């Protein structure tokens, strides 16, 4: 029961107009190639959730895919603003729903655990709670203290980029783990994009490394370099100059439009994108290997 398919097919099957989408990855393993495919397929009225919308949701919003964003930090990491999302909100053109990081992740944790809410301790800051009615209070029956609670977040689709997966969708991730596991378990459908599709034996040689099991996965797509301009630990570096460049591109609608044509609409897939990036970028983003010290599971 292989779940291998093209990303085009996976997006076409599982991402619908109006879907609630979680393209996971906290600064690491951001599934840009899936976002580009969604833009190419002209999906509309998506609600897009991410702790950090990052450039990926800025691009999708610019392309007209997004009607609502759910987030906890809306910045261009290490650079400044996400100009497109920010101006859409300031202009009243976009719905939004906002949490702290922990509130956002607690919603995913509740969603992944099948719970109707997750508790959090009070922080003393109450402004957000006053403007977001999904942030409520209840009384702990043991101490009578008030706690904050948030409801589950259950995306229609989670897209998760990983270092390696087998054809069944058993997926392994290392480096920053972010909210990948929680987003996958919380979602109704899961699309995995992977740097490498490996033999089942490789996965089974290190079961503790598997974050996402086959049983919750709908589609597995071989997508090397999917995370550029973010990165994949051990595979390639973060393209910081592009994060800076996007700050300029996103200053004018015209430049954004042109960029989307050149780098998304006019390309077929990530392979073409990576080739177009060129040898200089490949060299610059290349990383020298540093392997983990092996461990012994034993033959039992």
């Amino acid at each position, binding site marked *: 029961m292989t779940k291998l398919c093209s990303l085009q097919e996976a997006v076409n099957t599982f991402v619908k107009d109006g879907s609630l989408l979680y393209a996971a990855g*906290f*600064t*690491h393993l951001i599934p840009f190639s899936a976002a580009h495919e969604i833009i190419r397929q002209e999906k509309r009225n998506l609600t897009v959730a991410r*702790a*950090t919308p990052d450039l990926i949701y800025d691009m999708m919003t610019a392309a007209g895919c997004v009607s609502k964003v759910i*987030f*906890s*930090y*809306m*910045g261009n*990491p*290490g650079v400044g*603003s996400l100009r497109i999302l*920010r101006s859409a*909100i*300031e202009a*009243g053109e976009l719905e939004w729903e*906002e*949490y*702290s*990081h*922990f*509130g956002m*992740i*607690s919603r*995913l*944790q509740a969603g992944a655990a099948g719970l109707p809410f997750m508790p*959090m*301790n*009070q*922080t*003393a*800051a*109450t*402004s*957000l709670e006053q*403007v977001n009615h999904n942030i409520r209070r209840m009384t702990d029956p043991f101490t009578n*203290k008030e706690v904050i609670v948030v409801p589950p977040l259950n995306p229609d689709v989670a897209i998760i980029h990983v270092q390696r997966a087998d054809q069944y969708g058993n997926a392994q991730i*290392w*480096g*920053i*783990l*972010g*909210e990948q*596991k*929680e987003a996958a378990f919380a979602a109704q459908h899961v699309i995995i994009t992977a740097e490498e599709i490996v033999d089942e034996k490789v996965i089974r040689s290190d079961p503790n490394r598997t974050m996402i099991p086959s049983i919750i996965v709908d589609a597995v797509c071989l997508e090397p370099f999917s995370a550029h301009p*973010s*990165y994949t*630990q051990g595979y390639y*570096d*973060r393209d*910081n100059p592009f*994060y800076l460049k996007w700050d300029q591109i996103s200053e004018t609608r015209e430049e954004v439009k042109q960029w989307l044509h050149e780098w998304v609409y006019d390309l077929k897939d990530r392979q073409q994108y990576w080739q177009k990036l060129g040898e200089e970028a490949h060299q610059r983003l290349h*990383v020298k290997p*540093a392997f983990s010290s092996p461990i012994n599971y034993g033959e039992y």
Partner: protein
Amino acid sequence: MDYTKSELMTVNAARLLRDGDVVFVGVGLPNLACNLARRTHAPNLVMIYEAGVIGARPARLPLSIGDPTLVSGATAVCSMYDIFSFYLQRGNVDVGFLGGAQIDRFGNINATVIGDYDHPKTRLPGSGGSMEIAGWANRCYIMTPHQKRRFPEKVDFITSAGFLSNRAEREKTGVRGKGPLGVVTNLCILEPDEKGELSLAALHPGATVEQVKENTGWPLKVFDHLRQTEPPTSDELRILRQELDPDGIYIK
């Protein structure tokens, strides 16, 4: 000795850290301050990042909160849920660094919005991890340039709690953290008084009380025993300039 405003703030922030502190680090100046402290008086500082990295020893200057250099050579990596619950909420974090567009008289921080929330004049990035760091890290420090618009009497939106309207109001909520213990600016260090009101505690070399008052949005109290900070040493500046930020990305 010559130094920039950023260098001055970074050096003074670094000096607030104690050896063995577990510190929740952001990128930019707080990251430089922590790495500086680790290479000077606090070799056993443990750096934690909200992305879920513990004991990072970045070999290069991290340019984002999720830079891969934070992971290679770290002691542990965990999920975001774990870093906020098992580490921060559980009480395992000694120090948090915070910043924001506005800091008010009682150390409350606004990083969310200028103007009305539903119809924002300026939409800022929002809380990220800072709401919980401000509540639960045992000690918090704020780093910010000293400008009047950044220090209003009262913030439009409390993204992260300082002392609310006074120290007692914060304590009543039962949060673990003791709140902001110091605000490091390019002019001075502000510290809360017994009521939690930020007051002038120490002047950096060359800065005056008048200069600080002019750049603060409320009638600023001055502590009786106003301190003077030591200027950055040549050793501190050398580490910052040659080892930590050789391209001058943050200390320019």
